């Protein structure tokens, strides 16, 4: 189609100015400035293109706050050296076939970097011949025999880590590739900076080799710094503590340190680094391998999970020896030779739920095998942990587990732990890296017991500790606008705001993304259950839910698998609880194909004095666990610690999917409200991720600081559970309360009335320790704040995605536009029927919107509105919005645009926006590009909230939403809560009054970057998203709220996705009344541009002048665009030849047919 319509000169058209690639550089420049980086003025556009374009250079890896201190010197303790020297290889007669084979390999000589791994048998792999961690021969491991690889990116053996792998390895959070551990005293790595992500300038590590004499300090001497063109890394011997991270190494760097037996997790190695450390037996998780990387580390027997290999052109794959843990997954599409899976090699890594980067299982990834217990611990899988194979909540098929020999030492007590410091512990398989493990030992002054290890591993996981996001999320607190309406801020289960008249409202949104991919119904259902319990634990009665759902393309087979289950699960659970679903969104985009997003929101209400806290005050108070019985739900990793007879049968009882019981939760709600009503509780916490571990540590940490728990008392569904399993169980529908002794009986009575199991499991103490006993022995004794509050804090590298410049340059200005009435008509119908804009009734009719009898507005209205007080009409409005495409184009603006939309939606019902919650859905934090998107989005959201004067009260972060190396579009979902002093004054969005004047408020610019039009018609994503304008948003909001309160308008509908066209379609269909519209300016722009801060209103007859005055004093442009009436949508405007003409007319029945037939045809 030829581009007609109003021609502009190219110089005028912002859409046609390619965004200068140096926009990306500008972002970088901001990042590189001394922290804190200058925040862009809220509402300001992203940095404008530079006047003089600069050539695009590969961005360096930027690590904010990267320390510049010299590397510590590693000294070798002569006594240790002597011990090591004396170590002998295992006698031949104890070698099994694996050991023999490995020894044969070792004897073949040093690795030749030029060897491809096509023939796995020839891979030299030192250090494979032992399983006993204490025995090895260091002399084999002289890395000086390695020749440096040729310099140049992508040449020669490349290190196993490509983009997307960052400082973390493929398995377990924070357990990333670590440098080889040297012997002797641990270099002075600052524990507070634990685990140090890879950063430039961290310098090479030295081989600690007995007999090599005094070692040069790191960073000095002949060893090059780690960075572009650095030389070989040195091998570090076994049995040493964590090493500093090896920084991201530029192209052509040399081999990384060899990892010997007994070494812990290896630091991640940056992109394009040399060959990865070979890993000896008993070593931790291997580094993940990104695309384009060279030979992978070989993995010896008894090693932990193998590195995942990224998709697309990786070099030869790691060789997996007999008896190692799960095999590396190999990405789809052109990966190099697959790992050779020997008999007895472990299961293939499975894509799991709630887990980090999953190894994709590609073709040729080998058979499944029985995992022998002595071949290494089963990788732990827990919620939110890094890439996990197998067992755990919501993961795929489980490995068959066969117990072969006792690796179980009996209950691991504190006394035993103190007496056996050297006992190896599978902390890596539980997702802890070496540095974290060392910190735990430091905290406790001894090695942790299995139970304590379980607690720390899960409390310090990404999901529970927010270690990758904390440094950024702080901004929500630091930039929080001052308001006396915030009664409980961030950090609690949910934020609480004062809505007036003595009422307080608590609300929060949370994700349950990965479980919903694995088991859509239960994943979504338990997600609802979890967020509802969060609200309950604040002391509120839950009164409504909302959900924001994102799936792959609407017609994709997998969407047809996932969507109906998710919707049925949300409906099934919330309907059974008696909570009305008042709104949300359902969005389709290819990027969510294997990573659907299920964000569930719950809102609750209470009187000010009823607010509860998650504290455990007062020594002597009782700790009561009530709700469902505890079973083996989601414990995966705990089995590693405790399994004695982990045979087929016991394996089967590890359900990988948690099943929700909404009936139990309904009983819990009623029971809790009665408990609160009678003031029987001084502290309360719900059990979610990490079950009892989390609830006890958090309650204890927040209270008097001490607690004694008798694990024997916990009522079990499965009597064979071991204490570690009990601690990690994620059985649903459980709460934990702290009750004064005199109230315990009454507490129990109420629970009995509701037939809810309730048990006193412990007592609050003032010892500052969380102590737990099992069968009379102490198995946990730790300071709870260290687990609950003092988890690791990462400062991961940030770097704008390499393709961002090109993406932003690819503006939609070049796309051909509809040029006449017929084409416009077709476009209106096309968009109205497109999956994202089509009617969602198929989804929303599966939700009960009426229960509790207080729902004033629900979908598809602008926001959900619920009455709180029957007499005064006090109520709240809630809107939940996000836009992954906008955020992909510009994360800072995209987050602000989501905030703007939710803010606008709330105001469009007549409510005053008050507070914000958010769910931040992103890819892997190990990908600097993703981390950069996250940092920018959080900054944008924090800045925006600050400007708008509405604080973030709480929220949720979901990382690792990606498959292979392709993350989802960064998708911050923002919920805004507003207050209606009197809900009876609210307005709807449907046209109902024949003859009503329709007016458009706000300014329309030519903005199509990330628009629905570009997406639907062209599948195009490029350019920049619409300019953010918070000043205009606040002005519009004030006009709307005042106009609605004063009765000047009878209908309000905001403009967002799909522009004015979609707003007209929705308002006409909702009210079953047509409209006659005259468009100002370019009809295409008027209809489909997605400029912010706009709304369409129907004016009450006679109120036109007052409305105009209101708009003028607020600085909001207002234009009459037409009149409601008739049974068609009739649009007049400038035709192709410039004259005003009727462009098109669409009868309502045709509009309705387009709009309403889409969804049912894609799903059931």
């Amino acid at each position, binding site marked *: 189609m030829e581009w007609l319509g109003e021609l502009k000169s190219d110089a005028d058209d912002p859409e046609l100015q390619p965004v200068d690639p140096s926009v990306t550089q500008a972002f970088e420049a901001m990042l590189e400035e001394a922290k804190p980086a200058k925040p862009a003025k809220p509402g300001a556009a992203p940095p404008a293109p530079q006047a003089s374009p600069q050539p695009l250079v590969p961005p360096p890896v930027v690590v904010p706050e990267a320390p510049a201190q010299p590397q510590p010197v590693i000294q070798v303790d002569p006594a240790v050296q002597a011990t090591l020297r004396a170590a002998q290889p295992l006698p031949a007669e104890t070698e099994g076939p694996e050991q023999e084979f490995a020894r044969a390999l070792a004897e073949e000589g040093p690795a030749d970097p030029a060897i491809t791994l096509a023939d796995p048998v020839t891979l030299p792999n030192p250090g494979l011949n032992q399983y006993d961690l204490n025995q090895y021969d260091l002399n084999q491991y002289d890395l000086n025999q390695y020749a440096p690889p040729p310099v140049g990116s992508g040449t020669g053996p490349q290190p196993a880590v490509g983009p997307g792998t960052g400082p973390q390895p493929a398995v377990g959070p924070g357990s990333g590739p670590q440098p080889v551990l040297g012997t002797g005293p641990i270099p002075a790595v600052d524990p507070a900076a634990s685990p140090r992500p890879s950063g430039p300038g961290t310098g090479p590590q030295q081989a600690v080799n007995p007999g090599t004499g005094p070692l040069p300090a790191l960073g000095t001497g002949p060893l090059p710094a780690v960075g572009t063109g650095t030389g070989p890394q040195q091998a570090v011997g076994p049995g040493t503590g964590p090493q500093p991270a090896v920084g991201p190494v530029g192209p052509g760097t040399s081999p990384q340190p060899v990892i010997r037996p007994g070494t812990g997790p290896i630091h991640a190695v940056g992109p394009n680094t040399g060959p990865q450390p070979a890993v000896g037996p008993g070593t931790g998780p291997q580094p993940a391998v990104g695309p384009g990387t060279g030979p992978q580390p070989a993995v010896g027997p008894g090693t932990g999970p193998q590195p995942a290999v990224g998709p697309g052109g990786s070099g030869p794959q790691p060789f997996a020896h007999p008896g190692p843990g799960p095999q590396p997954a190999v990405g789809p599409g052109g990966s190099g030779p697959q790992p050779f899976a020997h008999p007895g090699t472990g299961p293939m890594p499975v894509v799991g739920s709630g887990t980090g980067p999953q190894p994709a299982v590609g073709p040729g990834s080998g058979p499944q095998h029985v995992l022998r217990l002595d071949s290494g611990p089963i990788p732990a899988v827990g919620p939110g942990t890094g890439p996990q194979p197998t067992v755990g909540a919501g993961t795929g098929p489980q490995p068959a587990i066969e117990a072969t020999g006792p690796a179980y030492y009996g209950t691991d007590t504190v006394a035993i732990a103190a007496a056996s410091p050297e006992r190896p512990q599978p902390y890596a398989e539980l997702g802890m890296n070496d540095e974290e493990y060392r910190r735990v030992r430091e905290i406790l002054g001894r090695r942790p017991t299995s139970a304590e290890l379980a607690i720390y591993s899960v409390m310090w996981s990404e999901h529970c500790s927010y270690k990758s996001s904390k440094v950024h999320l702080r901004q929500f607190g630091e930039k929080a606008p001052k308001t006396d309406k915030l009664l409980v801020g961030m950090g609690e289960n949910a934020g609480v705001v004062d809505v007036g008249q003595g009422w307080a409202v608590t609300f929060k949104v949370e994700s349950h993304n990965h479980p919903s991919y694995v088991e859509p119904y239960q994943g979504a259902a338990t997600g609802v259950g979890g967020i509802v319990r969060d609200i309950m634990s604040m002391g509120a009665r839950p009164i409504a839910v909302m959900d924001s759902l994102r799936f792959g393309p609407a017609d994709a087979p997998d969407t047809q698998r996932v969507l109906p289950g998710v919707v049925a699960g949300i409906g099934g659970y919330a309907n059974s609880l008696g909570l009305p679903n008042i709104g949300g969104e359902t969005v389709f985009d290819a990027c969510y194909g294997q990573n659907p997003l299920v964000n569930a929101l719950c809102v609750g209400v209470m009187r000010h004095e009823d607010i509860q806290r998650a504290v455990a005050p007062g020594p002597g108070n009782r700790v009561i666990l009530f709700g469902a019985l505890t079973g083996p739900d989601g414990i995966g990793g705990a089995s590693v610690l405790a399994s004695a007879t982990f045979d087929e049968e016991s394996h089967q009882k590890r359900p990988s999917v948690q099943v929700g019981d909404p009936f139990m939760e309904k009983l819990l709600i009623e029971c809790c409200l009665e408990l609160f009503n009678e003031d029987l509780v001084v502290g309360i916490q719900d059990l979610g991720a990490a079950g009892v571990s989390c609830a006890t540590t958090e309650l204890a940490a927040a209270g008097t600081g001490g607690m004694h728990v008798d694990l024997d008392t916990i009522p079990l569904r499965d009597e064979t559970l071991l204490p570690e399993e009990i601690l990690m169980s994620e059985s649903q529908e459980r709460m934990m309360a702290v009750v004064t002794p005199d109230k315990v009986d009454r507490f129990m009575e109420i629970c009995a009335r509701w037939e809810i199991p309730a048990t006193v499991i412990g007592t609050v103490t003032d010892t500052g320790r969380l102590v737990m006993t099992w069968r009379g022995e102490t198995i946990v004794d730790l300071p709870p704040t260290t687990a609950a509050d003092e988890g690791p804090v990462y400062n991961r590298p940030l770097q704008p995605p390499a393709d961002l410049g090109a993406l932003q340059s690819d503006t939609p200005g070049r796309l051909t536009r509809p040029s006449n009435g017929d084409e416009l008509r077709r476009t209106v119908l096309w968009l109205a029927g497109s999956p994202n804009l089509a009617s969602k009734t198929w989804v929303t009719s*599966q939700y009960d919107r009426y229960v509790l009898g207080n729902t004033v507005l629900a979908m598809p209205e602008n926001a959900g509105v619920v009455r709180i007080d029957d007499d005064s009409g006090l109520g709240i409005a809630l809107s939940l919005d996000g836009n992954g495409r906008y955020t992909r184009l510009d994360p800072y603006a995209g987050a602000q645009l989501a905030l703007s939309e939710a803010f606008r939606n709330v105001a469009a019902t007549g409510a005053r926006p008050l507070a914000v919650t958010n769910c931040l859905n992103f890819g892997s934090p190990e990908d600097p590009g993703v981390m950069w998107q996250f940092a920018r989005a959080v900054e944008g959201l924090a800045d925006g909230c600050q400007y708008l004067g509405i604080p973030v009260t709480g929220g949720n972060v979901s990382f690792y939403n990606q498959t292979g190396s392709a993350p989802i579009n960064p998708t911050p979902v923002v919920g805004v809560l507003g207050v209606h002093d009197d809900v009876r004054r609210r307005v709807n969005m449907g046209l109902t009054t024949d003859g009503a004047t329709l007016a458009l408020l706000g300014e329309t610019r030519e903005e199509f970057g990330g628009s629905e039009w570009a997406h639907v018609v062209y599948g195009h994503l490029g350019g920049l998203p619409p300019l953010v304008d918070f000043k205009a948003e606040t002005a519009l909001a004030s006009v709307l709220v005042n106009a609605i309160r004063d009765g000047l308008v009878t209908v309000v509908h905001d403009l967002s996705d799909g522009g004015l066209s979609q707003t007209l379609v929705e308002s006409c269909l909702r009210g079953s009344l047509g409209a006659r519209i005259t468009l100002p300016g370019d009809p295409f722009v008027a209809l489909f541009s997605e400029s912010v801060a706009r709304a369409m209103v129907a004016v009450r007859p006679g109120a036109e002048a007052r409305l105009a005055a209101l708009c003028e004093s607020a600085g909001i442009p207002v234009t009459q665009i037409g009149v409601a009436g008739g049974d068609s949508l009739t649009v007049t405007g400038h035709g192709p030849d410039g004259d005003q003409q009727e462009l098109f007319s669409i009868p309502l029945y045709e509009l309705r047919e387009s709009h309403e037939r889409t969804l049912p045809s894609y799903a059931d």
Partner: protein
Amino acid sequence: MDAARVGIITFPGSLDDKDAARAVRLAGAEPVALWHGDHDLRGVDAVVLPGGFSYGDYLRAGAIARFAPLMTELVAAAEAGLPVLGICNGFQVLCESHLLPGALLPNAGLHFVCRDQRLRVENADTVWTTEYREGQELVIPIKNRDGRYTADRETLAELASTGRIVARYLDLNPNGSQDDIAGICNEAGNVVGLMPHPEHAVESLTGPSTDGLGFFTSIVKRLVNA
């Protein structure tokens, strides 16, 4: 004159009990909370079995609630003429306890359905429907997963011929109920079961209409005049 007292039974999992109470209040009567575990109807003049998911709909909707202790007294009272209105889950309990014939099966579409449903009042003579006239059309929310009414041929014929069908769906049958049956009553006409939720159509602020109020004003009128 004392207000009429209408009892509302709460089972574990009942959800719309408070909404029923609101409707009773709006109609001018006094709602009385009754607990499933008691054996005491507290002398109420009429009883509402509210909507919800009693016992999680385990086994079958209403299958367990019908054995609640209070149901002993309720069945006896109903057989003696006490007005009883079973809404949604309440209808299911009434069928399970054989106070009403037939059964409620999963919706034909196999989905939970929440919609504003047009109904026609077929019988305006029961104590719960006197405020309507026969043939009157109402818009009342329906929201359930197991709303498909079914009975054997003889029962259906009898229901139709004796005017015991209280309401039928119009325009669209949301669940596949036989004969588009939305509600029925017993022979004596004091026990009515209804799938849609009249208690959610009593305020224009929160419902699609106020058409549901008639069920509650009917009983109030009857009780006051009794």
